[in-house]
C-alpha cells in the first residue's frame, strides 16, 4: 500500500490548490454544518473506490491544451462534478483501514496547511506540487503507460502541472488571484453597477460566485467575458489621460471623449497642412479649419456635449468659409463677420481666454479651439475663433 499512499499524498497535494476553492463552495452546498474534515474524510474514502476511468477522457484535452484558462476551467468543472458525484453517492464508504486512517490524518493536516496558506504564497506550495509531481512522474514512467486507471489520472495531473511549469506557474497563480479578482470585480461591480449573481450578503456572494462558476457554463462564459473586459479596460486606463475612474461608465466616457478629440485633431491638422500650399498667408488659409471645440485638457462631458451640438453648424460654416476663401478673402472675412466670428492667432486667443475665461465662462456660448494642444508653438499652426454672446468680443480682432 505504500506506493499507493505516496501517490495519494501527491495527488492530494495537487488537488489541494484546486480543492481549496471548491471546498469552500461545496460544503455550504450540501453539508452546511459539516466541517472540512468530514468532507475530506468522505471524499478520501470514496475516492479509491469509485472508478477513475471515467475521468480519464476529460483529462486528455488538458494534456493537449496549452492555454491556461482552458486547463483551469477543465479542472474546475471536472473536479466539481467529481466531488458532487462523490457526495451524491454518499458517504457510505467509511473505509477505515489503518493505512487509510493515517492517510486521512496526514491529508487533514495538509488541508489545514493549505487552508492557512490559501490566498497567500501559492508559490512555495506550488513548488511542492512540482516536486511531488516530478517524483510521481518518475514513478509513472517506471510503471509504464497507465494500464492502471489511477496512473492514467496521475498522468493527467502531471501533464497538467508540467504545462504549468512550462508556462511559468501561470496556472495556479491566475487561478486563485482570478478567483480573488473575480470576487473583487464582482463586489466592485455590485457596488458600482450591480452584480449579476445577487446574494443577500457579500461573503456569501463570493462563495456563490465561485460555485456558480463551476456549475453553470453560462456564468462561466459571463465571468470570463467580464474578466477580459476588465483586463482591457485596465490597459486602456494607461493610454487615456484622466483615467483614474474606477467606474466602467465614466471610464467609457473618458475614452469616448479622447477618441473624439484625437479624431478632431487629425481633421484639423489635415486642414492646417494646406497652409503651405496656399498663396495667401498661411494664417489666413487655415481659417476655415477651426471653429470646433476640443476637450484638450479633459474638459469633461459638458465639453463633449457642446461639441456634438456645435459640430453640425460648425461644419457647415466651415465649408462656407472655405468656399469663400477660394474666391476672395474679403468676402470670407465679411461672411465671418456676419456670423459674429473672427480670426485671430492662437497666442492672442489664449491670452484673451485665460484672462476672461473664469469670469465669462457661463456667458460664453461657445467654442474655443486649440488645434495645437501644446500651446503657441507656431502662430500659423492653428486659428482660433471666438464666438460669444457678448458684443464686445464679437467683432473684434480683425
Amino acid at each position, binding site marked *: 500500500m505504500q506506493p499507493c499512499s505516496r501517490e495519494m499524498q501527491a495527488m492530494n497535494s495537487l488537488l489541494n490548490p484546486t480543492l481549496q476553492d471548491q471546498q469552500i463552495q461545496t460544503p455550504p452546498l450540501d453539508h452546511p454544518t459539516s466541517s472540512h474534515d468530514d468532507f475530506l474524510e468522505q471524499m478520501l474514502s470514496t475516492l479509491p473506490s469509485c472508478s477513475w476511468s471515467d475521468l480519464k477522457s476529460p483529462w486528455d484535452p488538458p494534456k493537449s491544451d496549452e492555454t491556461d484558462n482552458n486547463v483551469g476551467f477543465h479542472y474546475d468543472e471536472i473536479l466539481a462534478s467529481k466531488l458532487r458525484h462523490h457526495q451524491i453517492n454518499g458517504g457510505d464508504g467509511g473505509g477505515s483501514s489503518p493505512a487509510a486512517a493515517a492517510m486521512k490524518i496526514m491529508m487533514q493536516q495538509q488541508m489545514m496547511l493549505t487552508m492557512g496558506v490559501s490566498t497567500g504564497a501559492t508559490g512555495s506550495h506550488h513548488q511542492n506540487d512540482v516536486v511531488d509531481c516530478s517524483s510521481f512522474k518518475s514513478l509513472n514512467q517506471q510503471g509504464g503507460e497507465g494500464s492502471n486507471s489511477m496512473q492514467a489520472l496521475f498522468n493527467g495531473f502531471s501533464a497538467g502541472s508540467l504545462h504549468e511549469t512550462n508556462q511559468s506557474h501561470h496556472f495556479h497563480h491566475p487561478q486563485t488571484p482570478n478567483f480573488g479578482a473575480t470576487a473583487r470585480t464582482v463586489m466592485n461591480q455590485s457596488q458600482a453597477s450591480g452584480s449579476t449573481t445577487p446574494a443577500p450578503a457579500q461573503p456569501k456572494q463570493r462563495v456563490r460566485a465561485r460555485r456558480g462558476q463551476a456549475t453553470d457554463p453560462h456564468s462561466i462564459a459571463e465571468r470570463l467575458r467580464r474578466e477580459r473586459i476588465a483586463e482591457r479596460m485596465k490597459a486602456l486606463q494607461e*493610454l487615456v489621460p484622466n483615467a483614474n475612474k474606477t467606474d466602467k461608465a465614466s471610464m*467609457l466616457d473618458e475614452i*469616448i471623449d479622447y477618441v473624439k478629440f484625437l479624431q478632431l485633431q487629425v481633421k484639423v491638422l489635415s486642414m492646417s497642412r494646406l497652409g503651405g500650399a496656399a498663396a495667401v498667408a498661411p494664417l489666413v488659409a487655415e481659417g476655415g*479649419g477651426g471653429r470646433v471645440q476640443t476637450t484638450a485638457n479633459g474638459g469633461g462631458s459638458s465639453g463633449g456635449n457642446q461639441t456634438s451640438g456645435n459640430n453640425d453648424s460648425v461644419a457647415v460654416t466651415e465649408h462656407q468659409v472655405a468656399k469663400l476663401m477660394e474666391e476672395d478673402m474679403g468676402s470670407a472675412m465679411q461672411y465671418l463677420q456676419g456670423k459674429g466670428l473672427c480670426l485671430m492667432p492662437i497666442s492672442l486667443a489664449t491670452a484673451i481666454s485665460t484672462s476672461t475665461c473664469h469670469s465669462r465662462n457661463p456667458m460664453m456660448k461657445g467654442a474655443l479651439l486649440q488645434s495645437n494642444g501644446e500651446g503657441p508653438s507656431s502662430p500659423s499652426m492653428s486659428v482660433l475663433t471666438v464666438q460669444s454672446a457678448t458684443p464686445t468680443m464679437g467683432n473684434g480682432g480683425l
Partner: protein
Amino acid sequence: MCPHTSLKQQFLKKWIMGLQRCSFSKKNMSILERKKTIKLSADIAMASARNGTTRWSRALISNASKDGSDNRLVQQILGPDSNTPAVATTTNKARTRRASVCKKIVKRSHQIRRRRRKCVAAAPVKAVTSSISKHLVRKRTQVLKTLIPGGEFMDEICLIEETLDYITSLRVQVDVMRSVASACFSQS
C-alpha cells in the same frame, strides 16, 4: 513616443507616398477637397500600416473603397495590395456571424440572470442603481461603436481591444502630422 517610432516611420512613409501619388492626378483642387484627400490619405496610410491585423483598419479601408470617388485614391495608395478588400469582406461575414452567436449567448445569460434575480430577493435600491448604470454603460458602448470604424460588428471585448489600438494609431498620426506641419512651416 519611443516604442512607436517604427510605427511612425511606417506611417510617414506610406503617407508621403500616398500624397505624392494623389498630387499627380489633380493639380487644382479646392481647399476642402485637398483637406479631404490629405485626411483620407493619412487615414489609409495609418490603416495599412497595420497590415490588416486589426479590424478597424480593415473596416476603414473597406469603407473608403466603397465610395466610388475615393476608391481610386485608395487603390493608388495601397498599390499592389488589392487583396485587402477581399479579406475585409470575408472577415465581415465571420464577424457578423460571431457577433450574432455572441449576442445569443449574452441574451441567454441575461435571461438566466433575470430568473436568478427573481428567485433571490435583491435589495430594491441596488437593482435600480445597477439597471441605471448598466443602461449608461450600454449607451456609451453604442457611442463608442459609432466612433471606431467597423465598430458596430464587434462585441464588447473586441471593441475595447480595437479602441486601444485605434487610440495608439491616432496618436501616432497626430504626432507625425504635427511634426511634418511644423517642419514645413519652419522652413517657409
